[in-house]
C-alpha cells in the first residue's frame, strides 16, 4: 500500500503533530507515504475569488501524483474535497480537461484522469480495515472516552465520496475510535461545521460556531475531541482560549488528531506522536493510560 502524501498548506507549519502521528502510524501499518516536493496548495483558498484557478491548481497536483504513478493520501478535509471534486470534474468533462491542460502545458505538465484521492482516515477505515488496526493495538485505552468531529469536507458533497460513510449520520470515525478500545460518545450538533472557512470574514460568527460544539462536547465530560482536519483543530483547539475569554467560560478540552489516538493504542510514545504541540495539554488523559 503506497500513496503520495498530500500535506497542503496548514499541516506542515501549524499541524506538525498531525503529520508526525500520521507518519508514525503509517509506518506501523506498512503504508508507504511518499513525499512529493512539488505538491503545492490544493487550490481551495482561491475558490472564492476564481473557481477556475482552483481547478487548474488541483489539476496540477493530480498531474504530479499521476506522473509518479501514485494515488493521493490527504490529511486535510478541504484538500480532500478540492482534489476529489476536481478529479471527478475533469475525468468526466473533456472540454474542461483540454482547457486546463492548455494552461498546464505552460509549465510542462499534463493532467490525465485516474488518480484516486483518499483521506488518510478513509484509507485506515477502507483499505487497512478495522480488523488489521485491532491486531496492532497493544495499549489499553478502555479508560478513555472521546467525541468525534468529522468535519464537513470529509463527508460532503456526498456525491464525490461514493457514499463510503453516511453524510447525515456518519459512523466511520466513531468506529475508528472504538477500535482502539476507547469509547466514542455521541453529542448534539455532531455534523455542525467548525466555521473555519469564514474565520477571516466574520470572526464573531466563526467563534460562536466553534463554541456551540465545545459546549455540546464538554457537557458529556469526554477526555478529548477527535478531529481529522487541521482547520477544524484551529477552531476548536487554537481558538479555545479566545472563545473562553470572549464568553467568560472554561473548557480545557484537549483536541487530538485521530492518528495521535491510534498511535497511543499502538503503544507509540508521546514524543513520536507530537503531543508537545497540542495546545490544550492532554496530560490528564495521558496519565489515565499511564503514558509519561
Amino acid at each position: 500500500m503506497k500513496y503520495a502524501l498530500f500535506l497542503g498548506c496548514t499541516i506542515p507549519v501549524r499541524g506538525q503533530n498531525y503529520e508526525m502521528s500520521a507518519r508514525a502510524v503509517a509506518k506501523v501499518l506498512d503504508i508507504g507515504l511518499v513525499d512529493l516536493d512539488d505538491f503545492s496548495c490544493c487550490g481551495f483558498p482561491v475558490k472564492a475569488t476564481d473557481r477556475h484557478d482552483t481547478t487548474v491548481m488541483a489539476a496540477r497536483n493530480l498531474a504530479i501524483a499521476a506522473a509518479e504513478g501514485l494515488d493521493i493520501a490527504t490529511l486535510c478535509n478541504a484538500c480532500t474535497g478540492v482534489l476529489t471534486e476536481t478529479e471527478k470534474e475533469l475525468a468526466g468533462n473533456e472540454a474542461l480537461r483540454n482547457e486546463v491542460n492548455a494552461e498546464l502545458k505552460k509549465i510542462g505538465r499534463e493532467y490525465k484522469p485516474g488518480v484516486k484521492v483518499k483521506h488518510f482516515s478513509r484509507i485506515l477505515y477502507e483499505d487497512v480495515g478495522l480488523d488489521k488496526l485491532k491486531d496492532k493495538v497493544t495499549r489499553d485505552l478502555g479508560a478513555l472516552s472521546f467525541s468525534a468531529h468529522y468535519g464537513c469536507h470529509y463527508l460532503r458533497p456526498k456525491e464525490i465520496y461514493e457514499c463510503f460513510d453516511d453524510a447525515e449520520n456518519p459512523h466511520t470515525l466513531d468506529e475508528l475510535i472504538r477500535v482502539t478500545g476507547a469509547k466514542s460518545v455521541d453529542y448534539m450538533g455532531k455534523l455542525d461545521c467548525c466555521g473555519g472557512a469564514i474565520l477571516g470574514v466574520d470572526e464573531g460568527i466563526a467563534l460562536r460556531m466553534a463554541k456551540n460544539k465545545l459546549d455540546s462536547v464538554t457537557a458529556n465530560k469526554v477526555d478529548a475531541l477527535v478531529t481529522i482536519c487541521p482547520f477544524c483543530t484551529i477552531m476548536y483547539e487554537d481558538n479555545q482560549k479566545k472563545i473562553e475569554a470572549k464568553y467568560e467560560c472554561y473548557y480545557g478540552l484537549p483536541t487530538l488528531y485521530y492518528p495521535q489516538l491510534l498511535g497511543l493504542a499502538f503503544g507509540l510514545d508521546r514524543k513520536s506522536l507530537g503531543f508537545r504541540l497540542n495546545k490544550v495539554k492532554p496530560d490528564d488523559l495521558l496519565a489515565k493510560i499511564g503514558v509519561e
Partner: protein
Amino acid sequence: MIDSKKLDPHFKFEVAKEMGKVNVTRCFACGTCTAGCPVRVIDSKYNPRKIIRMVLLGMREEVLSSDFIWLCSTCYTCYDRCPQDVMLTSLMTTLRNIAVREGHVHPAFKEQARLVGSFGRLYEVEDFDNKKREKMGLPPVKKIHDEVVKLLEHDAKKEAES
C-alpha cells in the same frame, strides 16, 4: 422595499451560465437550505433561501455588493439536502466569483489569493519553519512553487491594472 426598475431579469441566466448549470431556476423556496445552515442559526444576515430569491428576482447589485455572500462556510449541508438540486455551495462560489470581477472582493479572500499567487501556498514558509520541521524529523517543504506563481500570474496582472 424592492425597486422593480432596478431589477435585472437576466441575472439568473448570467449566474446559470457562469455555473454551467441552470439549477438555480429550479428553487421552489422550501427553505431546507436555510433550516440546516450552521451560519444562519447564529446570524440571520446570512440566509441562503433569501439569497436565491434575490438572484431569481434579479437584484444583481444588492447581491454582488453584499456582505452576506462571503459568509457561506462551504459546509455543503444545503447542497446535499436541497430537494431541487440547486447546488447552493457552487452557487455561492459563482456569486463570489462574479462579485470579484466587479470589484467587490472581500479583503480576507483577496489576501488568500495574494498569498497563494505569491508562494503557491497559503502561508509563507520561512527557513525557521523548515529548521523546526527538521528537529521534528520531518522533511522540508518547498518555500515557493514557481509553477503555481506562473499559472496564477494573470490574476496578479489584473490586480496591478486595477
